[in-house]
């Protein structure tokens, strides 16, 4: 049993972070260069942490499996980043951003963490502007804002439809500056395969050099994992091809508790699957739902072209079921309704898709207005699908997009392994059971720029960890384990490809641990995943050798981890007998089909402790709400 101490500071909510910063121990500036810190991952959280720690004078080693630190998937975030600047004079405040985020997360996040996030949100904007991030501006030359889902104020800052790209490049350039100054040493094309824990404390990592296949060891006084989420467990998701869970999963197996694995976000407006060889899904901006009407045919297995289906045979199911919100119903409700239509055999032309139709809006507003509003999105749609949305209704379907769960961390963002910190999407900390739009970028940068640089100093000055050399027996042991793991994968020489297994796992996850979950399905999923895992280790074929570039081997290792994580996601979902945010248990819903929380029994974070493959122990961190009163999440 792990002891879960959230280490939330005493005092009033508004003063916690300020007091904590004052109470934290500091490292003597002259001694900082004597401390080595490893940062794994160079996305928003990783790059910003590496840059900030480098600036402070620490010796940073940054690792990425990409060829360049600029490629992380943070780059694909489109919408924007929230901050409580209240530049629009519309009543925003730190408290409101905090409240919206806790409510959006369906009251399953830690109050103190979220408040701190809202507090530092303003510093992020200032920081990024100073770095030369070209945010959108109005004619007076001041920063522009747009509004986003889940909030009644305009607090989202953006740079065209490429906010994630610009923020990542900002962090990347800040880190590059430190590389130039010599405080950060960058290791590209290295995939972290394990963390080295000596006497219960994180002391370094073991990576595979993806060019030579060499297993390399690196030691440090502290390790930060900023390696993103695990939506690729579903095979098809909006994550990049190489996003994976390996770094945090291996850390989990070394003792770091995994929190809320079942909290996954399914985004309603993605492009549907076109065929068996589909490799990933593309998100279309949610703003399309402002003018598009969502429908399917009333008739089952209707293979007619959408324009041949007469008006009276169309079922505008969101408008029918949710007359108040209609096509603008929240993400989870819209996603589930689309799934129900498909399950009912009424998917668009038999596909896993529903129509998003602009005909009515074009007739009402004219093509020109629609073109101004959505022109570039329509272009992207046509590039990918070949259909012209001005003439034929779009086809959309929900897809896994973000994972709120991750490694459990305390207020200092340290996992249950001392010395192992976790930042960004890789931790579980701030979004509860559902993340609001434009909050992922905010959290990644908050962790990296403004939180970890403080808390890691406190750890180093307080715990005074000792550097272990890489020839320590534990390092050698881990290296040996990794080498054995790789040779085992290469020696199976079965009949099925790595992708075959990944796709099969994805199907199980999507059907049974996806948008709607129930006890029966989850139990079946657990069985099926166990079966599949067994089969994987008997029948997978990993082509090639270990001491060369081998993308097949890279994927195989990741899929091996998904096959373990998938089971935990199902187990967590099975264990949480309530519906909240992205986790919808069909048994627990209101008569209107809304999520039904069970605050009495489930106001806690599930932190799973790894015992053996397929065996976990549940630890609970109770969530206490001092400032906010728990309420039913209603957007009516």
């Amino acid at each position: 049993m792990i002891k879960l101490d959230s280490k939330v500071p005493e005092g009033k909510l508004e003063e916690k972070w300020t007091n904590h910063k004052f109470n934290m121990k500091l490292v003597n500036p002259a001694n900082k260069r004597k401390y080595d810190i490893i940062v794994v991952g160079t996305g928003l959280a990783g790059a910003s942490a590496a840059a900030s720690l480098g600036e402070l004078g620490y010796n940073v080693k940054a690792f990425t499996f990409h060829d360049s630190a600029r490629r992380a998937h943070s780059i694909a975030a489109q919408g924007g980043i929230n901050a409580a600047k209240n530049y629009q004079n519309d009543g925003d405040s730190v408290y409101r951003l905090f409240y919206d985020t806790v409510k959006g997360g369906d009251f399953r996040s830690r109050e103190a963490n979220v408040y701190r996030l809202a507090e530092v949100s303003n510093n992020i904007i200032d920081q990024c502007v100073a770095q030369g991030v070209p945010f959108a501006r109005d004619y007076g030359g001041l920063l522009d804002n747009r509004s986003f889902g889940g909030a009644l104020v305009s607090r989202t800052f953006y740079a065209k439809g490429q906010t994630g790209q610009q923020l990542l490049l900002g962090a990347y350039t800040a880190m590059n500056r430190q590389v130039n100054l010599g405080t950060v040493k960058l290791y590209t094309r290295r995939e972290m395969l394990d963390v080295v824990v000596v006497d219960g404390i994180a002391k370094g990592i073991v990576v595979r050099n993806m060019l030579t296949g060499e297993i390399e060891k690196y030691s440090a006084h502290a390790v930060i994992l900023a390696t993103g989420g695990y939506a690729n467990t579903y095979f098809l998701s909006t994550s990049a091809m190489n996003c994976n869970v390996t770094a945090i999963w291996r850390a989990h197996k070394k003792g770091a508790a995994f929190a809320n694995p079942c909290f996954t976000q399914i985004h309603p407006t993605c492009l549907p699957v076109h065929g068996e060889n589909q490799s990933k899904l593309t998100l279309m901006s949610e703003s399309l739902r402002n003018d598009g009407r969502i429908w399917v045919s009333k008739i089952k297995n209707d293979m007619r072209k959408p324009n041949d289906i007469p008006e009276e045979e169309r079922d505008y199911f969101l408008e029918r079921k949710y007359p108040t919100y209609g096509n603008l119903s929240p993400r989870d409700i819209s996603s589930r309704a689309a799934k129900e239509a498909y399950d009912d055999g009424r998917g668009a032309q038999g596909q896993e898709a529903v129509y998003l139709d602009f005909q009515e809006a074009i007739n009402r507003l004219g093509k020109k207005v629609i073109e101004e509003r959505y022109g570039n999105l329509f272009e992207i749609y046509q590039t990918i699908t070949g259909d012209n949305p001005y003439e034929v209704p779009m086809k959309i379907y929900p897809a896994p997009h973000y994972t709120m769960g991750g490694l459990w961390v305390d207020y200092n963002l340290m996992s249950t392994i001392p010395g192992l910190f976790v930042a960004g999407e890789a931790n579980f900390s701030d979004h509860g059971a559902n993340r609001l739009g434009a909050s992922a970028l905010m959290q990644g940068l908050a962790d990296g720029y403004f939180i970890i640089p403080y808390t890691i100093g406190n750890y180093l000055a307080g715990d005074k960890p000792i550097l272990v050399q890489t020839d320590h027996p534990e390092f050698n042991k881990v290296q040996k384990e990794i080498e054995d793991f790789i040779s085992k994968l290469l020696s199976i020489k079965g009949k099925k490809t790595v992708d075959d297994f990944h796709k099969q796992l994805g199907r199980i996850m999507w059907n049974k641990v996806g948008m709607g979950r129930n006890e029966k399905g989850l139990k079946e999923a657990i069985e099926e995943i166990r079966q599949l895992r067994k089969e994987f280790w008997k029948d997978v074929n990993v082509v090639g050798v270990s001491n060369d570039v081998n993308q097949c081997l890279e994927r195989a290792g990741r899929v091996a981890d998904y096959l373990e994580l998938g089971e935990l996601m199902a187990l967590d979902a099975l264990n949480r007998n309530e519906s909240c945010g992205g986790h919808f248990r069909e048994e627990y819903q209101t008569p209107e089909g809304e999520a039904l929380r069970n605050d009495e029994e489930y106001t806690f974070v599930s932190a799973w402790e790894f015992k053996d493959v397929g065996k976990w122990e549940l630890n609970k961190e109770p969530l206490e709400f001092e400032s906010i009163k728990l309420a039913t999440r209603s957007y009516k």
Partner: protein
Amino acid sequence: MSHQKLNLTLKVWRQINAESRGTFEEYKVAVSPDSSFLEMLDDINNELERKNLEPITFESDCREGICGTCGLVINGQPHGPIPRIATCQLHMRNFKEGDTIYIEPFRAKAFPIIKDLMVDRSAMDRIMEAGGFISVNTGSVPDGNAIPIPKDIASESMDAASCIGCGACVAACKNASAMLFVSAKVSQFALLPQGQPERYRRVESMVKVMDEYGFGSCSNTYACEAECPKGISIKNIARMNRDYFMAKLKTENLEA
């Protein structure tokens, strides 16, 4: 959606490592027109793996045209025949039944081939590290609205900043010049007030490293602009040239 599959002949560049000689290998495929170009390669790879043959090594990540990881030269054109998209956004419906498609890696002395279609583009990062930043530490910065920036200047800076660092400009240029890539970063900061203090120092150090890595010079053929998936303008190159001359005339730096 059409269900008729396209029958194509692919000639794919295969090369074991940087030192070895590469050759084209032929693959016959039947592919759905709705499939993307990279999904077609995924398919071939799965087939190869089933036969216990080495899959084709190629890189890609986001498959949304923003990360800049992918990049193949398709029938002589970086990112293929359709303008303003990355390889990952190219779909097979843009090809015809019976087409023969040559797939080659980006070729430049500064981009050595690692394996098959995978090249080493780290020289671009080295250029960035030399000066592609604004020197501000975390924390000590003024309010975001302290310096107003005209809307059109911010948006011009944004256009330059939208470079995805894929290297298609280098691959397309007959001189393998990285001027479009470097000038995009130089321009982004040269336009903004925040970038002024280091404006001339930046361009000098970045150009210096660019030259050290053996990229060619710019012949103003503008192939880079034509092939850039983000349509970065060659006006940025003009701006960089201007700044470079000014740097040489104004600064007291005798070294760079």
